[in-house]
């Protein structure tokens, strides 16, 4: 335990409240602390009554202005297992459809007495804006192409959990030493992926060696500031030398299709087929943040392989999000300030606040 949360608690005691808006603001120590607290919530999840009274009387709102299955349900499960009350807010059935602005909507909900907003939005920066408008804690559950911090945290947690189990100490926190020098390939639609941005920052901060594998058109226009060791266009050449193969979803709703000659060609070059999966080392892990395009970036039979962690990522997601909500609402602070530098702003047609992408 690094004790950062306790030091930060001094601020919390003064009434300062913090948010989880990006991995960039956490730094390695902040990430490590969240992973360690997640261990305790994984234990809670194994009990016959997987619920603790920690956040009784607190209210968490999930405000999702973009479609989601697992993130939303995961946050709601996490909040309920902490005994918080959950309000679920969906843009499609709200007064946003009548033309109410996001700010008015958020302030209205906040006026009902809310302790945390979990915000997903098509526009990068929307959760940060919400954080400026309200006193409540704000958790970024995915904003445009920017970041999806809890996804990166649960991915890191899952990697660490598997490596720790192999080391033979399933209960004890292993710190984050297992990430140093870990070879991770992040494959696919990096350009449109907030998951990739958060994950690259997290893995970079923890000392992993990240290789991006994608067709040139699906890479971001600039990689300045990305803690990436290597960029490759050849998946077959990369696969034998990685410990983790992380596949990204081809984001058709953000127009990924326009960057490719055809989805079939993409799948032929960059899809993890069973032939390609055989190139992976015996201990290599296969991960995907979901939702999967089966047959595009990942083949059916690869999903079913024992080294595929897709469902384990989902289970761990609940525990990691419990840790985040507990650390935000229980003591007013997640992780520490400082840390990794923020990503360079995306040039090109990055959506800004107010534009609606793919709606």
């Amino acid at each position, binding site marked *: 335990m690094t004790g950062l949360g306790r030091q930060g*608690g001094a601020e919390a*005691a003064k009434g300062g409240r913090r948010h989880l808006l990006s991995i960039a603001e956490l730094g390695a120590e902040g990430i490590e602390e969240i992973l360690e*607290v997640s261990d305790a919530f994984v*234990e809670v999840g194994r009990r016959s009554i997987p619920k*603790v*009274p920690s956040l009784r009387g607190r209210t968490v709102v999930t405000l999702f202005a973009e479609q989601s299955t697992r993130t939303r349900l995961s946050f709601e499960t996490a909040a309920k297992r902490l005994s918080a009350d959950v309000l679920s807010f969906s843009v499609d059935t709200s007064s946003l459809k009548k033309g109410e602005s996001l700010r008015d909507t958020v302030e209205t909900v906040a006026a009902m007495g809310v302790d945390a907003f979990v915000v997903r939005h098509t526009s990068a920066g929307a959760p940060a804006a919400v954080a400026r408008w309200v006193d409540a804690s704000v958790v970024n559950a995915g904003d445009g192409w920017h970041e999806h911090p809890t996804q990166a945290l649960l991915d890191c947690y899952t990697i660490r959990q598997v490596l720790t189990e192999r080391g033979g100490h399933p*209960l004890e926190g292993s710190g984050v030493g297992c990430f140093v020098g870990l070879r991770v390939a992040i494959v696919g639609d990096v350009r449109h992926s907030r998951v990739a941005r958060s994950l690259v920052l997290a893995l970079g901060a923890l000392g992993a060696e990240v290789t991006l594998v994608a067709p040139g058109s699906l890479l971001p226009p600039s990689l300045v500031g990305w803690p990436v060791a290597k960029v490759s266009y050849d998946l077959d050449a990369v696969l034998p030398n990685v410990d983790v193969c992380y596949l990204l979803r081809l984001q058709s709703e953000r127009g990924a299709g326009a960057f490719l000659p055809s989805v079939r060609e993409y799948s032929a070059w960059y899809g993890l087929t069973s032939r390609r999966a055989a190139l992976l080392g015996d201990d290599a892990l296969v991960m995907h943040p979901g939702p999967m395009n089966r047959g595009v970036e990942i083949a059916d039979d690869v999903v079913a392989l024992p080294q595929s962690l897709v469902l384990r990522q989902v289970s761990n997601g609940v525990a990691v999000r419990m840790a985040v909500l507990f650390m935000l609402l229980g*003591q007013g602070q997640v992780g520490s300030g400082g840390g990794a530098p923020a990503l360079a702003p995306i040039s090109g047609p990055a959506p800004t606040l107010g534009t609606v992408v793919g709606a």
Partner: protein
Amino acid sequence: MAERERRLTPPRGGVFVPRVQVLTAQDVQRALTRIAHEIIERNHGLEDVMLVGLQTGGVPLSFRIASVLEEMEGTVVPVGLLDVAFYRDDIGIRPVLPEAATDIPGDLAGRLVVMVDDVLFTGRTVRAALNALGDYGRARAVQLAVMVDRGHRELPIRPDYVGKNMPTRIDEQVDVSLDGVVLGDVVPR
């Protein structure tokens, strides 16, 4: 949770300055042996008994008691570990983080649970621990063993087995380990 960690961490925290050695390592060992005898005596044996050490200060004490019990009765008593952070009543008031792993071996239904902690002070940790135990099943009975009872209770809680009754000032600090019990003060950094 060990009183040591709680009191030495911000916002109230500081540096522990030892003043008096109250018990030596041998004294602690003798007290644990006596507590083990008392556990057997009170419960007419060790049937259904499970020790639960409260993280982190109670854990080494609970393992030591378990090994004494095994020596005396030839019975292996299961030892569980419990972190009560999620059950505390000061969540949101002061920084609360789990200190270490919780590991309760099996269902508590029908068990006789002896909770073990280093210092009994306000009683709030024990209150949280009782709630936490309830989530692992309905124990037949729960008893409490502590190395030091330093008084200043804020809840109607009393220990069943005490290593040493030790009147203290509320601002003093008691440090318990298998190496002994030390009374001292916390000096702000």
